[in-house]
């Protein structure tokens, strides 16, 4: 598989435990607010995720030591499991050798996004070429890109300098130019960086970590210029040629700096790192790894979203034009369900949120309700209409974050595919990798999806928010264990995959969404749906319904278009067949076409959809 992020090849050097000997593994994810500890145990049949403990993360004052929260989470796991995990003395907090079946653990691992995660600034020469490659390298390494600066971004020097000063990055990734190309622009960018002299977020006595991954012929001069204000590491160019990306070395350097400059200066992380022979991974990087592993193993195209309180991460694996799967990750830093919920309103607009609601609400009330959630982020919806409002916001956050993802998840055309016009434009031919019609599986993660009161609500949020098309398997992460499994996979990919497949993924159903020309008249049937050779029903134009909700296992789905122009994934008029897993939601059929026409999105229409799917009952 091609990785737009590169493979973490050095990690094995840190593993001192033979994965074949492992029986009990404890993994934490130290998040911004909560530290989640999961226990994984090998039973007779397979690996299982057995116990879970949570405690508030203690990176901030007054505790300012991440290990305190981690120990508290260990205590909860110990109490629930009855396993003696904690060790009263010694450097490590736990019994490391499993002397008896109920004592100790074999290995401790961790991921971290505490303190706002890894925050980076990227700089390049051409925004659609080198800067974009740098963004992909940073995002794939699990970073949040706070700012992108390019020589062609249309800003004046002083504007760039102001923006650079405004952000306090943990690490800067600088690139620019293909190998052997002109050096002047990239040297200019280095001068701009020196003029701005951004200060690192942590450790104000440290020099700012800067990774240079640009034109190799400029590296000596860039290093000389930047060394006045930064600790510079030079790695291979992220874009050695116009038609080729090389993101692995930059990603490696980011992970090294993450440990040496970010983690080691965060309160308590030195101690935490000493507890594990495997290096701590940024949480999104770990999630990305397990998504890639799953896509590779099942040979599927996968779209995974993690919608949090402040940010929304999107991960995807889609084939490029050569048929080789490509992994991408993006993070929409200010689209979330609590801290930044009002920003979804600002970016999407009230009308776009209201179109998903089955009731009328004024713009003023909508605005005030969402801002009250923003300032009291831990509160939860108590009334059904309040829940629907949050779920409407979720649909828009999904829509916006997918649009952002599509803009960055691109393939690069090879030389023979590039036209003469591209050569003169000095830009590479980019093409979008994400094709919803070809998407096999969606994985939803984050409280609003994983803990929705009904799985059907989660399914509908993903179908409507992403605007799914064709046949797509729908699933959610049961208790947000993907980060844990990502870092576990770095030691034992087989064990992590087993747990991911059996304990993490909840297959909630399958969506069937025909796409057709507008001329098909209302109430006409669009397609027939068969399961294991039996006709289940028809999908009607403009209607949403579910079929086969009693079936919870696996079956062969066959969707037969009833018009030559209706496409359900195999092309207009073509039959689509696929083995699917049916969960609580069965087969969710959406006959509203894509994009859904505004006339089909009134409160009355949306209420009819909710009623058809049994979503209006609440606590009744």
């Amino acid at each position, binding site marked *: 598989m091609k990785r737009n992020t590169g493979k973490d090849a050095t990690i094995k050097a840190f593993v001192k435990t033979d994965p074949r000997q492992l029986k009990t593994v404890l993994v934490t994810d130290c998040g911004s607010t909560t530290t989640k500890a999961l226990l994984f145990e090998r039973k007779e049949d397979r690996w299982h995720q057995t116990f879970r403990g949570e405690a508030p993360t203690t990176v901030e004052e007054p505790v300012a030591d991440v290990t305190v929260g981690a120990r508290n989470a260990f205590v909860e796991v110990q109490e629930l499991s009855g396993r003696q995990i904690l060790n009263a003395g010694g450097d490590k907090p736990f019994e490391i050798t499993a002397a008896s079946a109920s004592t100790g653990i074999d290995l401790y691992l961790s991921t971290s996004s505490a303190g706002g995660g890894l925050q980076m600034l990227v700089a390049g020469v051409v925004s659609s070429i080198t800067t974009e490659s740098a963004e992909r390298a940073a995002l794939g390494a699990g970073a949040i890109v706070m700012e992108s600066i390019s020589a062609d971004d249309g800003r004046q020097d002083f504007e760039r300098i102001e923006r650079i000063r405004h952000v306090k990055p943990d690490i800067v990734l600088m690139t620019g130019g293909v190998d052997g190309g002109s050096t*002047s622009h990239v040297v200019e960018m280095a001068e701009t960086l020196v003029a701005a002299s951004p200060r690192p977020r942590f450790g104000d006595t440290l020099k700012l970590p800067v990774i240079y991954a640009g034109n190799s012929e400029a590296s000596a001069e860039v290093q000389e210029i930047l060394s006045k204000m930064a600790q510079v590491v030079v790695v291979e160019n992220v874009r050695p040629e116009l038609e080729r990306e090389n993101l692995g070395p930059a990603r490696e350097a980011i992970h090294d700096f993450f440990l040496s400059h970010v983690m080691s200066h965060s309160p308590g992380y030195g101690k935490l790192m000493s507890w594990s022979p495997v290096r701590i991974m940024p949480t999104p990087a770990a999630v990305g790894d397990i998504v890639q592993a799953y896509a590779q193993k099942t040979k599927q195209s996968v779209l995974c979203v993690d919608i949090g309180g402040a940010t929304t991460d999107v991960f995807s694996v889609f084939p490029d034009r050569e048929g080789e799967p490509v992994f991408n990750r993006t993070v929409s830093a200010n689209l979330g369900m609590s801290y930044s919920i009002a920003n979804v309103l600002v970016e999407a607009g009230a009308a776009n949120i209201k179109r998903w609601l089955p009731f009328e609400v004024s713009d003023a009330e909508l605005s005030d309700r969402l801002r009250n959630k923003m300032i009291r982020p831990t509160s*939860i919806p*108590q009334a059904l209409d309040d*829940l629907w409002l949050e779920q409407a916001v979720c649909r828009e956050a999904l829509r916006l974050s997918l649009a952002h993802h599509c803009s960055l998840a691109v393939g690069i055309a090879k030389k023979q595919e590039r036209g003469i016009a591209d050569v003169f434009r000095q830009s590479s031919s980019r093409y979008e990798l994400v094709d919803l019609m070809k998407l096999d599986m969606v994985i939803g993660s984050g409280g609003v999806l994983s803990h929705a009161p009904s799985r059907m609500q989660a399914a509908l949020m993903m179908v409507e928010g992403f605007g799914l098309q064709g046949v797509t398997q729908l699933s959610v992460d049961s208790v947000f264990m993907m980060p844990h499994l990502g870092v576990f996979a770095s030691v034992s990919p087989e064990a992590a995959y087993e747990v991911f497949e059996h304990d993490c993924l909840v297959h909630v159903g399958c969506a069937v969404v025909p796409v057709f020309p507008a001329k098909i008249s209302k109430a006409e049937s669009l397609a027939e749906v068969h399961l294991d050779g039996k006709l289940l029903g028809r999908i009607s134009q403009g209607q949403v319904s579910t079929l086969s909700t009693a079936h919870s296992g696996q079956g062969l789905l066959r969707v037969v278009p009833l018009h030559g122009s209706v496409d359900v994934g195999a092309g207009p008029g073509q039959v689509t067949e696929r083995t699917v897993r049916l969960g609580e939601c069965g087969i969710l059929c959406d006959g509203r076409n894509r994009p859904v026409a505004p006339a089909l999105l009134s409160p009355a229409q949306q209420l009819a959809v909710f009623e058809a799917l049994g979503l209006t009952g609440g*606590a009744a």
Partner: protein
Amino acid sequence: MGSLFSPGLAVSSRHTVQKRRELPIKGEILVRQGERVTGDTVVARAELEGELRIVRVAESLGVSPEEVHKALRVSIGQQVEAGQTLAEIQGLWGLFRSSVSAPTAGTVEFVSASTGHLGLRAAPKLLTLSAYISGTVFAVEDQRAVVIESEATFVQGIFGVGGEKTGRLKLLDVSPDAAVTEADLPREAQGLVLVGGRSPTPQALAEASKRGAVGFVTGSISGETLRQYLGYDIGIALTGDEAVPMTVIVTEGFGDIAMGERVLATLRAVDGEPASINGATQVRAGAQRPEVIAPASNARAGAEARTREDGAGLRVGARVRIIRVPHFGSAGTVSGMPHNLVKIGTGAWARVLEVTLVNGAVITVPRANVELVE
């Protein structure tokens, strides 16, 4: 579980407030431990490195970067005045001379043969740091920070915009549940921190600012009024840097919610006294809420000394306020704490509380949806 933590905001008429005042870089501390200071006292200063200006010499002269050194009239390390010639070339037979002059005074830091640029470093800037609150210097960290301590009336709001300000508190003559209009404002508001009511109109905020008020503390505000006041929408609760002349603090939330009785009573006790306020709000980890601080020397003797935070344990008998629809803004007393999870109106299972409202009605509310008021 008998009690649990529930978020609350400090409302206290006698609170030991400590404020750390930290320089962004090493500098000079100007006060000693134990020294009395006022909010305006400069307690520390530092020299910030001057800005580096990039002068595009090659482009301006129309020469290649390698030729720039021949045109230079200054050398690296040299101090230059604004307008001084940095480089010049002469055209054919000495005619059509063209030159580049310094855009600002400074020191020549580099000349690049790759780009033909000259880096000019401006003189350092002096940064001063005030005490922000009146009190005593509690601690000094050499070259870095001071901590100011004060016994004070201390009230935290839920959300604010605008940074640190000092002014005299002035209670408005309005009911706590009345929307504040222009007619409710004092004729002279220069240097005042206006307090009271709820949901000020956009005109009231604009007029208060125009009359010179430095702060406006009120029960609630609508999102639309805030947008009109700032000129843009706020989407993230990360504030304090807004370029507004008057800091605005709301104590309860967005919409039409009356200012809480305890908040009003606490601020009424220091009406007319000097205060320090800050609208900065950060809801994420490392949470920061907006604040009103009036030093104790100004507080009335014998005032009650309780805080919302004192009752961090949520228990039967605790007074709470509900922070989510359908009972948003209602106050009551915890009358039951069922141990088991309960299915709530959304269909979700949650830990709940039974709350007896002021009107005697008993309602069930998720524990996540209350905050302590005492």
